[in-house]
């Protein structure tokens, strides 16, 4: 059974750099045509850190920039501004193909859709073998086969030798997503970027994948950036929680603490909207339609102010910076920073 009780974040208490950190990470996209040049601010000034053996959940609604962050970290997109540090070294300093390959094998990605992320014309062994040949060329053919069987067993695809010989269409959605994790694991990663890895799966098999991620952390020592819109599953598996809103971090901290006493009004709204059959229905402030903003050429000010019942004058003028509020917890909200006990939606 996987350990689920409150692990403390792997804070760099001894001054060692975190496994991965970002500093003012920013990504803008140009939209419109030559006549109306506009800029979509997908990610703005994001500072986050992921420690060793830690699952960090990045939670937010669609359009909040969480997938863009995953793509920036996976080097699919180049940042517009800011820097990503891996083991203390800036990624902009990666010059050689060998260094680039090494980073990609240290920080692989698992995708959302298990039905389109595996090549349907090859056996599932194909992807794992290619990963091994590319990233661990020192292995012999025999060793590659053994390693493929080891990672398939580690993700619960047994008997591994037999499953490796199957075609993707012979596997269920949950099994295919496990293949995705096996491929990532074959590279002996330090950090797996998992972008909504369970949202396309049926409810009854999601838990199995979440348990798998916790198992990879505990047994293989891998960190996971778990990107999701489902805050309940984030709570289930994550050590730390980062809540995104409109391209910026709204709140971050140890998962249990953030959920027990959310400080940002958006986190409070998000929590109040989660359906919970075990709780009684509380019909409260239902005026919020859940319309996420598109951040195009934003002016200064808090991006949540239009939906926020607590907004004050300052929120319309000054973008609230992400500031530490309590040990390990940061909030980007003028009101919460002024009055740490404020609760809007609870």
């Amino acid at each position, binding site marked *: 059974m996987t350990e689920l009780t409150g692990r403390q974040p792997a804070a760099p208490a001894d001054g060692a750099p975190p496994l991965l950190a970002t500093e003012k990470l920013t990504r803008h996209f140009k939209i419109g045509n030559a006549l109306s040049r506009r800029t979509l601010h997908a990610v703005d000034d994001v500072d986050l850190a992921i420690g060793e053996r830690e699952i960090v959940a990045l939670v937010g609604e669609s359009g909040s920039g969480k997938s863009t962050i995953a793509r920036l970290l996976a080097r699919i997109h180049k940042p517009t501004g800011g820097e990503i540090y891996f083991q203390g070294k800036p990624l902009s300093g990666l010059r050689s193909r060998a260094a680039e390959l090494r980073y990609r094998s240290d920080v692989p990605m698992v995708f959302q859709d298990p039905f389109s992320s595996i090549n349907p014309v090859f056996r599932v062994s194909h992807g794992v073998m290619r990963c091994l040949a590319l990233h661990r060329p020192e292995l012999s053919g025999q060793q590659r086969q053994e390693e493929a069987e080891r990672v398939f067993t580690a993700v619960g695809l047994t008997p591994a030798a037999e499953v490796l010989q199957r075609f993707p269409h012979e596997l269920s959605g949950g099994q295919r997503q496990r293949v995705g994790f096996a491929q990532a694991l074959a590279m002996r990663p330090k950090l797996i970027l998992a972008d909504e890895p369970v949202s396309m799966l049926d*409810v009854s098999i*999601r838990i199995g994948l979440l348990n798998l991620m916790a198992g990879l952390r505990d047994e293989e020592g891998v960190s996971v950036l778990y990107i999701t819109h489902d805050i309940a599953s984030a709570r289930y598996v994550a050590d730390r929680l980062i809540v995104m809103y409109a391209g910026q971090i709204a709140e971050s901290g140890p998962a249990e603490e953030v959920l027990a006493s959310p400080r940002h009004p958006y986190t409070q709204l998000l929590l109040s909207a989660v359906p919970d059959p075990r709780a009684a229905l509380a019909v409260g402030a239902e005026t919020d339609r859940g319309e996420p903003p598109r951040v195009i050429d934003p002016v200064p000010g808090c991006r949540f102010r239009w939906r926020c019942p607590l907004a004050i004058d300052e929120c319309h003028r000054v973008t609230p910076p992400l500031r530490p509020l309590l040990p390990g917890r940061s909030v980007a909200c003028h009101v919460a920073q002024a009055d740490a006990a404020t609760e809007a939606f609870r």
Partner: protein
Amino acid sequence: MSRPLSDGAPGVAPAPGPADAILSVRDLSAEYVMERGTVLAVDRVSFEVGPGEFLGIVGESGCGKSTLLFAIAGLLTPPAVVSGGSVQFRGRSMVGLTDRELAAVRWKDLSVVMQSAMNALNPVKSIGAQFADALRAHGAASKEHIAGRSAEVLRMVGIDPVHLQSYPHQLSGGMRQRSMIAMALLFTPELVIMDEPTSALDVVAQRSLMVQIKELQQQLGFAVIFVTHDMSLVSHFSDRLLVMYAGQVAESGPTRRVFDTPLHPYTAGLMEAFPSIRGPRVPLTGIPGSPPNLARLPEGCRFADRCPQVMPRCLAGPPELYEVDGTLVRCFLHEEAARHD
């Protein structure tokens, strides 16, 4: 008393439900006829929906819930066909109606809200034009009436009527889904069938839409059949729940009852599969394995290979649907309780 409710001769015993049902589905079967053989996607499903009732239909992908809806609304297209049973809507059979006869009923008395509003709305016509289309098809002639009614239903779902001029791409996902619901209410139908209308929405938008559907339902009095894979979503909104597994009804009963004391191991497993946002953090296991292939069904219970309480007899033959205190459950564990009922 043990009574086979949908496995015996057709129409033997009515499923528990309101006596004056507006929709009555009896032993409905639907199959996909393919070259390699037929796949029975809906296997003798029976239920009733009373006026103003909210029925939730819950199940995983491939359990036949969408096929069931399409069969009820007369929307099945080959290779899917209704292969048995009956659907009575307001005392009239819906199976075997011609397109013309169906067209008279659809929108007016019974409307359907599809899963993806993005694909269900016409991208090259404004919302208002699409509303006008439906209104004209059912005889609304005057421009004033069309404009008035269109604005009225949009206001009902909380959208400013200026958006009648908008095209679908100019609206957010939540607004598109709301305008689909507005369109379904153009004629104040007696029954609105919804196929996962909130699954593409974020949790805040989803919650807001559910509350709105419930309010409209109470205000206008229509009945709702709401299909979803997310059981927790309907927990506070539906009156009765129908849990489907591999094409069959696994359990059916009052929503609160099903949530408080799930009888079928599958229902119990589904409830255990949701991490909770409150209370202690407990390790969950979900349900191991995956649903059976409908083209190669096992001889016994279809849930047997995933069931934590499986018995030898479960593998030998399929259980029937037993009635226990107003709840129907397809599981041998409750055969005894049903007999003593």
